[in-house]
């Protein structure tokens, strides 16, 4: 990776450390859902079908409490709904043909857990002021 090709390349994201693939496949990632705003959330409690969370709006840094139903989460992500789980809440729109449809998506984050991952989640919970909500034994 030390030796960079300094020749001009028409249009390819990998033109630093790599050889080129097909440009059409390389320099565009089709976006089916256009994100306009994002909140980062953490699940603080679950009561049956209701999920209680705290969220932070990325652009403003404002905090919100937000409750949603498990069925609002894509079925793939429902097994990930546990206390302390991190998720992103996106608002935006989907483009189908020439029409735009406003949309919201809750996307749970997936990561293989390690002690450091768990520390990071706890740090996030602390930063959001959730520590006080956790029962101490």
């Amino acid at each position, binding site marked *: *990776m*030390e030796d*960079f090709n*300094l020749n*001009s*390349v*028409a*249009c390819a*994201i*990998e*033109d*630093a*450390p*790599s050889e080129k*693939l*097909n*440009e059409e*496949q390389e*320099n*565009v*990632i*089709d*976006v*089916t*859902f*256009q*994100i306009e705003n*994002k909140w*980062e959330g953490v699940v603080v409690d679950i009561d049956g079908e209701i999920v209680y969370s705290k969220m932070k709006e*990325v*652009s403003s840094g404002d905090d919100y409490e937000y409750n949603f139903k498990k069925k609002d989460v*894509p*079925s*793939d*992500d429902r097994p990930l709904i546990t206390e302390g789980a991190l998720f*992103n809440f*996106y608002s935006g729109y989907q483009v189908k043909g020439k029409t735009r449809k406003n949309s919201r998506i809750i*996307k749970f*984050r*997936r*990561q*293989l857990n*390690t002690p*450091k*991952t768990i520390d*990071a989640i706890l740090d996030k919970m602390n930063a959001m002021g959730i520590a006080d909500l956790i029962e101490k034994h």
Partner: protein
Amino acid sequence: MIDLSLKPSESIYEIEILGSFIPGNYNPMWFFSNDLLGKEEAENATILKAEHEVVMIFTTNFIRIIVEKNKFRIGTGQLLSFDLVKDMAISVCKLIKDSILNEFSIETCLHITFKNEKLFLKALNSLGNAERWNNLLANPQSIEFEVQSKIDLPNKKLKRILRVSPCGRSDMKNTLHVYVFNVFTLKKEKTSVWEVIEEDTTTLNASITLINDLNDLHFKN
């Protein structure tokens, strides 16, 4: 993540891991079987190219995966989804730690479209300081620009590369690629790639700051 001061027509955030891979092994179902994608997400992934020994390219609603013999690339078309890319990269590095090298890069790549050709060419000339060539050439025009910096950090070296070049796509008139590549080389074998990616909270913001400064200095009139 700090805000961009300009609105790109397209953007990509990507983490590229180097190593030795058999691309065909990394189809969407491999990601599902390792809990990195949901079942529906994996089944609905769009496979753009699959040649077992050569390349695997597929996309989901949020990420794109490209695996070649020596590269494993995880990207998104929206900067706001950078954390999903990080999560995926960290998990992939943990799963295939024996196949990866101690080098990787974090890349922010934008397409910046100008209102007209005059502004587009002016921006390139500003970057390349083309006026310096007035005595040697008539109407000098800069074509592309690249600058690198090397930073020695604890446990790792960082090479940051800023590259600006015209986009050749027919659907992208008066458009520049603005790429920031952050190439990390780990010094100690004990430090793992996934730990560095996990602990990194500055690279994306540093890249955006660089692009914002570039915009202020060279793209605004």
